[in-house]
């Protein structure tokens, strides 16, 4: 049967070819004579925008060729394990990245000209995600400011002004409810617990508790966090949580427990509710259905003092350059390009974020205008739900409270989790 043998030989050859291609593919990276750097970019909504930025940069000079890698944060973590991290990254600044920072695997960016222009108000916020002594490991690139999104038309129809105090807020909600309008649209469904975490949980706590001080104390107390520590979730968060539950129990849509993030955006677009506790990322989703809807934002008032009003911010993107990369100079060159005012301002305008540089021309989109005075005055905090390590399922705890769990007991559980994690890492 020569046929069988020939076929077998053919298949064997095919297998070998496949293996050979696989092996050689890694080798042929830079043929063009330009220095190739790998740029990890993790914000998926902004990939088309960043593609253009990279293409423009690659065309503008003939020394560096940037290749964008959008495979996400897990892949980046794997590359650190492998020892070939990206040459430069713009990534969401969170507890995951804090590991790279704290272990001093990122280079010092203090002497870049970009670093000189960073708004000093933001430094303590970046430092909340860990520091490597003596280094500026990461530079903020895009700050997302989040608060209550409201439908201006509905507010005007019912002669409601933006509430500045807790009792104003309750009065407004009562008025809307009496008129048959759903005051807040809740999206408490199973998989979207994060909407409760970043919205209800963070805004309530951030509006009453000084987050910077709170988390500093918590880190100092470590394993002692509990009913007898100076500060703890069960002591400091109970009042904000009770107020949050007062809102979620009385002023949300009846089917909130089964509504998702996407449902919330659709309902806002259709004018089915007056307020939604979401960040600026929701605007582009709402605009898919209602491009001309007039929306505004205001920080959730939790006390009777308008001076306590603060907006929740997060370092949506921060730039860093790992030590293990081989192209530090080229990476820095690209970093300076990214921080050129026209690039960074255009990026943040496209994502409705705030530019973290002192010379920034902030975007004047009316939808985020309500938060701008607070951002400019430095009245901002980072949400507790993202400052807690990922191994504590704080989103789910927040969801449990909203769906009926006892807040006192749930907060005590978070304290116990915190203490246990501190013990494990000690």
């Amino acid at each position, binding site marked *: *049967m020569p046929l*069988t*043998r020939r076929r*077998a030989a053919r*298949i*064997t050859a*095919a*297998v070998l070819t*496949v*293996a050979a*291609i*696989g*092996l050689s*593919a*890694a080798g042929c*990276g830079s043929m063009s004579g330009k220095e190739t750097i*790998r740029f990890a970019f993790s914000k*998926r*909504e902004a*990939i088309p925008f960043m593609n253009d930025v990279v293409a423009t940069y690659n065309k503008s000079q003939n020394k560096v060729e940037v*290749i*964008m*890698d*959008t*495979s*996400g944060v*897990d*892949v980046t973590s*794997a*590359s650190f*394990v*492998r*020892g*070939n991290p990206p040459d430069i990254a713009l990534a969401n600044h969170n507890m995951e990245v804090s590991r790279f920072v704290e272990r001093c695997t990122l280079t010092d960016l203090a002497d870049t000209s970009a670093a000189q222009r960073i708004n000093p108000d933001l430094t303590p916020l970046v430092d909340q995600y860990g520091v490597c002594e003596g280094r500026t490991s990461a530079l903020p690139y895009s700050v997302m400011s989040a608060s209550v999104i409201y439908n201006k038309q509905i507010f005007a129809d019912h002669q409601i002004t933006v509430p500045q105090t807790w009792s104003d807020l309750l009065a407004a909600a009562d008025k809307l409810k009496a008129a048959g309008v759903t005051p807040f649209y809740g999206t408490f469904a199973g998989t979207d617990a*994060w909407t409760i975490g970043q919205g209800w949980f963070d805004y309530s706590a951030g509006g009453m508790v000084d987050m910077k001080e709170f988390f500093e104390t918590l880190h100092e107390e470590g394993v002692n966090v509990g009913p007898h520590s100076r500060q703890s979730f069960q002591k400091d968060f109970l009042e904000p949580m009770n107020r949050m539950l007062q809102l979620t129990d009385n002023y949300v849509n009846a089917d909130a427990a089964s509504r998702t*993030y*996407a*449902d919330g*955006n*659709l309902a806002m677009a259709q004018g089915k509710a007056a307020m939604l506790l979401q*960040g600026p*990322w*929701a605007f*582009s*989703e709402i605009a*898919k*259905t209602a491009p001309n809807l007039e929306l505004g934002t205001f920080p959730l008032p939790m006390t009777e003092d308008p001076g306590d009003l603060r907006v929740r911010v997060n370092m949506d993107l921060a730039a860093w350059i790992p030590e293990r990369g081989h192209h530090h100079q080229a990476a820095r060159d690209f970093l300076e390009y990214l921080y050129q005012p026209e690039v960074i301002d255009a990026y943040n305008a496209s994502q409705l974020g705030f530019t973290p540089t002192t010379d920034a021309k902030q975007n004047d989109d009316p939808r985020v205008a309500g938060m701008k005075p607070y951002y400019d005055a430095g009245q901002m905090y980072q949400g507790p739900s993202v400052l807690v390590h990922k191994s504590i399922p704080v989103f789910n705890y927040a969801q449990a409270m909203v769906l009926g769990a006892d807040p006192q007991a749930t907060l005590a559980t978070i304290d116990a989790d915190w203490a246990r994690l501190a013990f494990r890492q000690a």
Partner: protein
Amino acid sequence: MAATTPTPAAPAARQKIRITPERVNWSATIILILCAFTVLLPLYVTISMAFKSGTQAVDGNAFSLPNPISIEGFVEAWNLTNFPVGAGVSALVTAGTVAGTIFLAAFASYAIVRNWDHKFFRYSFFYLLAAMFIPFPVVALPQIQLTGLVGLANPGGVILLATMFQLSFSVLLFTAFLRSIPYELEESARIDGASTWQTFWKLIFPLLAPMSATVGIFAFLYAWNDFMMPSLIIADAQLQTLPVRQNIFQTQFSNNYHVSFASYLMAMSPAIIAYLFTQRWVMEGVTQGAVKG
């Protein structure tokens, strides 16, 4: 069941037993219809969603028909994932894994079954089976480091690892099937002067064909759909496989259902087409193994 009826049917007809039309088993039929729905409904949503426009995709009516029919999802998905390259790498990885699994598992099984009384071969069988109990995530970290060290942080490394992970289950299938092939067949080949190599290629491997198809299909589904291993092993994003590229559609903050479903549909099609052409083989392989085993 259908395969067993022909033999007893012949004497039955001679005894003139009246063949009544089979009664419809309604409860089973209803259960099967419901089961079919669990497959068909998501498939319908996938297809209709893929042809929707961006506005219609987020309107909250997953079951509505696309109106107007739009292919913007396909265009965007094609560009965002760089589909031709992604599909090419996926095809390469899948072909390599399928071929590697079939040949290596057949070689190993043949050696093991024919030398079962040797301790070495018996224990190597258990050794290979033991790999079934090691899921990839457990060994992910050292494997990322190892592949990085030896220059296999590319599709080649994924082929190697995927083949290895498929090996244990495939060896199990092949050995069970090989035991059912009578040794006398092989003896006759030996008498005709065939070497071991010739016996394997000219006699055993063709006889293994139905089982090879089954093994190949399992390997195909695994390699084509696998997300975690390629995402962690392949270092260069441009050589990434399709499922990993599609990960960009899974975002927390935005919904591009029409783009994602168009992309999933394009990625699914090879698997579905492969299944359409090979399902006869799968069924054959499974029933043959069942009757003889």
